[in-house]
């Protein structure tokens, strides 16, 4: 969580209600050696800051706090870079106001 921006998202996400579905991540980044432009863009574009660049230069996703907004699907699914699904019924973000 190096970027100051990152820490602020972390603080914002704490306010939200999120039911973790242990061990079942609903979004998966397809293995790649060099991330495409669209996949790289997700490291700034994701509103919940779920996409990060690992030291080895790969883009990783940790979909805790994900809003299921679909932005990464719109950007990366057609290019086959991301496998996107909704979490199991009742899991994931649950908006208190919406």
């Amino acid at each position, binding site marked *: 969580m190096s970027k100051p921006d990152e820490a602020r998202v972390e603080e914002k*996400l704490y306010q939200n209600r999120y039911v973790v579905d242990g061990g079942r991540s609903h979004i998966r980044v397809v293995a790649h050696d060099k991330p495409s432009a669209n996949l790289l863009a997700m490291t700034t574009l994701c509103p919940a800051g779920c996409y990060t660049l690992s030291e080895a230069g790969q883009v990783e996703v940790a979909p805790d706090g994900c809003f299921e907004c679909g932005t990464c699907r719109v950007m990366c699914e057609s290019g086959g870079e991301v496998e996107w699904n909704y979490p199991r019924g009742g899991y994931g973000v649950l908006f208190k106001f919406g």
Partner: protein
Amino acid sequence: MVEKFDCIVVGAGMSGNAAAYILAKRGLSVLQLERGEYSGSKNVQGAIMYADMLEAIIPDFREDAPLERHLIEQRFWMMNGAAHTGMHYRSDAFNEAKPNRYTILRSQFDKWFSRKVREAGALVLTETTALELIFDAYGACVGVRTDREGGIVHADVVVLAEGVNGLLGSRAGLRAPPKPDHVALAVKEMHFLPAETIESRFNVHGDEGVVIEAVGTISGGMTGMGFVYTNKECLSVGIGCLVSDFARSGQTPHGLLEAFKAHPSIKPLIEGSEVKEYAAHLIPEGGYKAVPQLCGDGWVVVGDAAQLNNAIHREGSNLAMTSGRFAAEAIFQIKSRREKMTKDNLSRYPKALHDSFVMKDLRKYRDMPALLHTNSRNFFLTYPELVAKAMENFLRVDGTPKRETEAKIFSAFRKARGFTGLFGDAFKLARAWR
């Protein structure tokens, strides 16, 4: 033995609840699937609710629907770094017996709407995610498979009210998934303040409400819009831009939101507030040209999943409710005539949309998305700066003769866009608005 219903509604947002309510009221057997814990737990919106469309569905909704404030003032702002130029329209006429526009909180409102759907007789299954559509040998949709064990269920027709992503429809090849330049990513926060503070800061009382919608440099040159909506005890503060612009700009949505909140015109409105939720969602922005095929054998698509959103006027929930209603009416007519849910029979639904304001408005602004999108730097950077500078020069009284001030303003516009640019923009804007 697989259960069979007259219709299955996938999704419990505005369009889904509208369709399920009318279908159940008409006496059809309706199964509604909602993946969230309750209807509203997965829905995000600014959120403004248009009364006329809801009255057509639940005439006496004002008696028990959870409404935040009825709107009496609309502020359009063009903002640059430190200023905003605003056009405000406020009228006491909006304090009418049946106000026209309300602000709502989606999770409370949808919960209420869903109770009405249940009371109407529909079966509502929450915490159940629809995974895929099921087709028969002839390619007609006959049901849905869900993520619960033994989760296959059949129906004569499936109403796809699954929201902007439209996973089921695109996975079944009924339409293409949304493209980056056809959807906007909006992020918003709920800022809690005592009701009196909101009322004094916006100069309203009781449950009168104000809406601020702003364009300008706040979206960093991207096609976008910021907003502040007044609810009873909180302000919805948000900003959204086209996903394609966002991706290219390298800006973060939360960074843009923080900058918008820090703007001198916004900061004092939210001073001392307590943020209780941060949310994000996609808004269909493609307009008329992005609306997909609306029905087929055994299925119809409604609401955001059908990209039915008038971005220029920021009207989404009214189109969603209306499309849900029209789809339900079409299905009921077919059912009462004991006809088949074929594509032709179901085409009553798209026809009704075309004859209504829904498609008329969308057609009217069909070129607007492209125009704003291709000239986003001009409309969202150059002009806001020019207007702000013009107002600044116009208002600052420093003894320069008025004629000189006006000349200075016009030369600034000419230098920035040149005559052809200015006339070109004006002509394109007028044509797209016609």
